[in-house]
């Protein structure tokens, strides 16, 4: 009877501790209006800039509990926008993203490590055109503060840059790169703002 009571109390204590740990990892609602995944790529001599206009995300972040923190983004490839309708349509075609067959690109964090100076190395699984790759996204915590325009909210910001070889992710076959038309290295700027109730 005593053993049973002890076990029961231990179990309750374990559950409560777990709940407490989970409760410290804050949920942040991604502010899609003030976030984006910008990219730059070379075209012959110039640089073409673009972004994605339709994406969703989940951010759970606590610098004191990186184990439970999480970044998840789903980006609709057919929302690509390089300020040229015909180019955007070509990018959505089989020559590049094949948006009709593979609508979303997904990044899901697996492990977050503190690299110091407010930089967090977010190791995750990046799914593009149906295949999943390991990708580390270095995100710099820009800050957390009371939202200047919404008194009941706090805002958190992250910025990160990474350069990837699009051909490694099969976004393109390389024919345009061989022709000297389109570069293969894509500079990506991830800039995020997320909100949470105080």
């Amino acid at each position: 009877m005593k053993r049973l009571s002890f076990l029961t109390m231990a179990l309750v204590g374990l559950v409560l501790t777990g709940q407490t740990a989970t409760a410290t990892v804050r949920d942040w609602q991604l502010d899609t209006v003030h976030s984006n995944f910008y990219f730059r790529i070379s075209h012959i001599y110039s640089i073409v800039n673009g972004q994605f206009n339709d994406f969703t995300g989940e951010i759970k972040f606590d610098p004191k509990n990186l184990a439970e923190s999480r970044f998840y983004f789903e980006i609709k490839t057919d929302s690509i926008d390089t300020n040229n309708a015909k180019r955007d349509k070509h990018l959505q075609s089989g020559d590049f993203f094949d948006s009709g067959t593979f609508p979303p690109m997904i990044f899901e964090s697996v492990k977050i490590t503190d690299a110091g100076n407010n930089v967090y190395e977010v190791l995750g699984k990046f799914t593009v055109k149906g295949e999943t790759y390991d990708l580390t996204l270095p995100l710099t915590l820009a800050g957390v503060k009371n939202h200047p325009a919404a008194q009941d909210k706090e805002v958190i910001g992250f910025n990160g840059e990474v350069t990837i070889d699009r051909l490694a992710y099969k976004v393109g076959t390389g024919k345009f790169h061989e022709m000297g038309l389109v570069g293969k290295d894509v500079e990506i700027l991830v800039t995020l703002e997320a909100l949470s109730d105080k």
Partner: protein
Amino acid sequence: MPNVMTSQDKTERIKLKAYRALVVGGLLLVIAGALSIPFVYESQTLWYKIGLDKTFLRGGQMIGLLAAVLLFVQILLAARGKFLKELFGIAALMRWHRTNGIVISFLAVSHALLILVPEGITNLPIGKKYWPEMVGMLLLCIVVAMAVSSHFREKLRLNYKRWRAIHKLLGYLVIMFLAVHVLFVSESFEQIVPRAALLIFFAGVVISIILSKKTK
């Protein structure tokens, strides 16, 4: 008493043949000019297509331009101006109008397929930023609907007067949509010569319609 052709009749017949040849020759020249546009005024979209995709796209552009020329001709045939009536006769004009309508529908569908296949059939240009393409899609639907409703008017039990009124109205709409679609969908028509040629042709058709109504 045998029919004797006077020298005046002979002159008239030669004149008629010459005018017919001029009209047909002029039309063939316009068609040749239109079909040369994807080569002489190549759109940048073609630069980013390789192999079969490039062939499909260029072929689709050529078929589209042919359909466009025939659409303008279609309006002239329908207007049946005095000049064309005297040259060819009403029966021939009506017969060509019917056949031309079917040909235009097939060309329009082929144009759409050849243009869309290189980008992928699952990658249709739908959305505000693709508005010139969407005007083209609307145009295609109207053209096919007109051809089908005309060809099967009796089977569909469409009242002739009502069908004719709608057919006429749609015909004018089609020409306006066509001009807008061609002017804004293709980079080729951002260049002076093709743009001017299209606008002159469009204006010519409009003037012919107005004149044909005045002389009726």
